[in-house]
């Protein structure tokens, strides 16, 4: 069969939107161009670094959220896991100022793993749908933050300098936090594309019954993605406390929506089975750029939320249209 003929430009645009990553990339370039025309300082190294710093934590958690969503699940409790782990780690660090910062990082990841494992158990053993299970732990974990802290905060002066530098230090040219996010992206990319366990995640999300029939340990795969989500949140929690030099009862409140937004904008399908690491990273980058750009061109922060929401809707609608068209091409 011959390819239907299309005008050149339309054909090019079609190819771009069809390849999700290219579509977002193009959108980012246009956006950056427009903002730079208005405020040339947007492209200054300082501002670009600022954007990277702002999206590092988001990228780390969104990567984990993506794995969860690929299995046709969702983890709403990420914000509370970050809040709880940040509070606990900050408390331990405050008590032991001599503790190596790297140990704090490990502690955070272990705490996160425990919280994520609990989610995983409710979902696999308890057979509670992920949306409900993590909605429950969203409240439980946040409640524990208040319980653990007695409602008080841990402030900057209570934390040692080494801990504060953990996220912002630049021994290797870029801030540690940005490097950690990049490392996380590489690891998740390798995991999802080049290991059986990673491929099992796609298989489970694409057709759960068939996955089971093919001998894929479905429950174990599900448990794993929620566990990993917890680990990512633990890591994010330590970086959060280090970067903002505090742990508060409302740390990361509402953050789950941003992680879902980054995934969905990055082309991860809410119905499971579809999603790539480059897509999510670009999704997080786009959210970060929009936030930064709106601030720089002095648009009210109220609009930032609206812009984020609009972006999600556009992403989903474009997805739908692209799929419809792809389906038609196959049929004809």
């Amino acid at each position: 069969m011959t390819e239907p003929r299309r005008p050149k430009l339309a054909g090019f645009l079609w190819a771009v939107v069809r390849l999700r990553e290219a579509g977002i990339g193009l959108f980012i370039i246009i956006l950056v161009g427009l903002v730079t025309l208005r405020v040339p300082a947007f492209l200054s190294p300082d501002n670009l670094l600022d954007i990277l710093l702002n999206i590092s934590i988001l990228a780390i958690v969104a990567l984990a959220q993506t794995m969860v969503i690929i299995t046709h699940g969702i983890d709403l409790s990420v914000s509370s896991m970050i809040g709880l782990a940040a509070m606990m780690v900050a408390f331990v660090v405050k008590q032991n100022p001599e503790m190596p910062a790297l140990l704090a990082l490990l502690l955070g990841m272990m705490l996160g793993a425990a919280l994520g494992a609990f989610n995983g158990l409710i979902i696999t053993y308890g057979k509670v749908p992920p949306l409900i299970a993590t909605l429950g732990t969203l409240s439980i974990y946040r409640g524990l933050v208040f319980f653990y802290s007695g409602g008080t905060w841990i402030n900057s002066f209570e934390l040692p300098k080494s801990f504060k530098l953990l996220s912002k230090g630049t021994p290797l040219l870029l801030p540690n936090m940005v490097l950690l996010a990049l490392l996380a992206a590489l690891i998740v990319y390798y995991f999802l594309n080049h290991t059986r366990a990673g491929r099992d995640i796609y298989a489970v999300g694409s057709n759960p019954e068939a996955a089971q029939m093919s001998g894929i340990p479905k429950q174990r795969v599900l448990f794993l993605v929620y566990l990993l989500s917890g680990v990512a949140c633990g890591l994010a929690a330590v970086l959060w406390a280090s970067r903002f030099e505090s742990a508060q009862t409302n740390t990361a409140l509402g953050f789950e929506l941003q992680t879902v937004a980054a995934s969905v904008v990055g082309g991860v399908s809410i119905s499971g089975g579809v999603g790539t690491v480059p897509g999510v990273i670009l999704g997080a980058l786009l959210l970060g750029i929009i936030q930064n750009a709106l601030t720089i061109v002095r648009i009210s922060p109220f609009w930032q939320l609206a812009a984020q929401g609009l972006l999600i809707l556009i992403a989903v609608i474009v997805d739908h249209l692209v799929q419809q068209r792809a389906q038609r091409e196959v049929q004809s």
Partner: protein
Amino acid sequence: MKIPDDYILELKKITKRFSGVEVLHDVSFTLRSGEVHALLGENGAGKSTLVKVITGLHQPDGGEVYLNGKPVHFANPHDSRQAGIAAIYQELSLFPDLDVAENIFVGRQPTTTAGRVDWRKLYAEAERLLSSLGVHLDLKQKARHLSIAQQQMVEIARAISINARILIMDEPTSSLTLNEVADLFRLVRRLRQEGAAIIFISHRLEELYELADRVTVLRDGAYVDTRPLNEVSRDELIRLMVGRTISNLFPKQEVEVGEVALKVEHLSRAGSFHDVSFELRKGEILGMAGLVGAGRTNVARAIFGVEPPTGGQVFIAGQEVHITSPQQAIGYGLAYVPEDRQAHGLIPPMTITANISLPMLESYARRGWLQDALERSTVFAAARQMEVRASHLWQRARELSGGNQQKIVLAKWLLTRPRILILDEPTRGIDVGTKAAVHALMSKLAAEGIAILMISSELPEVLGMSDRVLVMREGRITAHFSRAEATQEKIISAATQAVGALS
């Protein structure tokens, strides 16, 4: 006398109960290497349950399973796969978001010693496997974009790749075109020649005669008989299956045809069909034959306003109408029973009552409030008239057998008192007994003066039920026969040959 040891699979006196109800009773079954063994029975006879016992999805409550002469016990489908048994179900079990090659090896992708997936080897293996089957597919194509026939090929390749010696195919041909069926049969014969044992389930008796060596018949969960197919006639098979003789499968009565109820002129819809014209009279059954994908369903959907036509005219009782939604169509006295009951005909999680009353809900309501008693009594009468077999009317539609689901869809549309009824594959996937009931009902409705447009891919049904036959091919009408002129050969040639052979 064969030595019993030469059976690759043997089931002895299998019994299976679900919550106290016996669905399989002392069923025995034997399978040899290098044979195609058909499993035949009405819906609910226990074929699917038997298959699920073989694959380990269900555990038998009594009896034994022997594989190569040794007793085995499968705790789950994974166990049976390991033992070389692969089942290809009606609902295909591919991963729509993974590509062809990965679908074949999912869960057991080849890896390097470091545990990394060896993609190069995976694609090479997939290529080798598919070409050894004589199948040509783009390895990087996502499974969601494959046709059903191609998906089956991938499933078969997957079965071969795990060295399955026993292949179970549950109604593999029900949604294939004639050419695709031929391809599938070629492949099955080839596998048989290479020594595979194949259990083949189909309701189409003609196919069994063409392909199978032996047939085992089940009825109401019990074993009836096993025979070589070349020693048993078609009528005999039907008698074994239903336990009675169905003298006439297609009891279309002679009916005086009345005036034109529906007239379609030069109807077109870009991309799916062109220049379709025909007349349908009161009391007439107009058969629409053709291959799957010839555009017949699209014509029906266009007339019913689901996908309105882009050109041409539709007349109902002589008046031109412009139907753009199913609500309008219902208002004009049209009813459409779609092909895919699960997707378009029923709302599976809703009760039988709710499903049947759906199109006519307004008439059971007073000032917006449903009158439960009225709804119930009407639905009850309709369900009884259709002989729906269910434990009660609050049962969910998804729990019913295919035949009973079809009865519910019919009951639902008949309550709208249609003057024109479009039936799309009215008996696909339902058993012989229910089929006869549906045919009798169609005949009765025609006698009452309803005009019926019947789309069917089953030629005996088309020939037996239709007063006139239209044949479509690639979106156009290619032939038009009266009941007397129509033969199997003429219809097949019009459905498969180029336009221009128009009689």
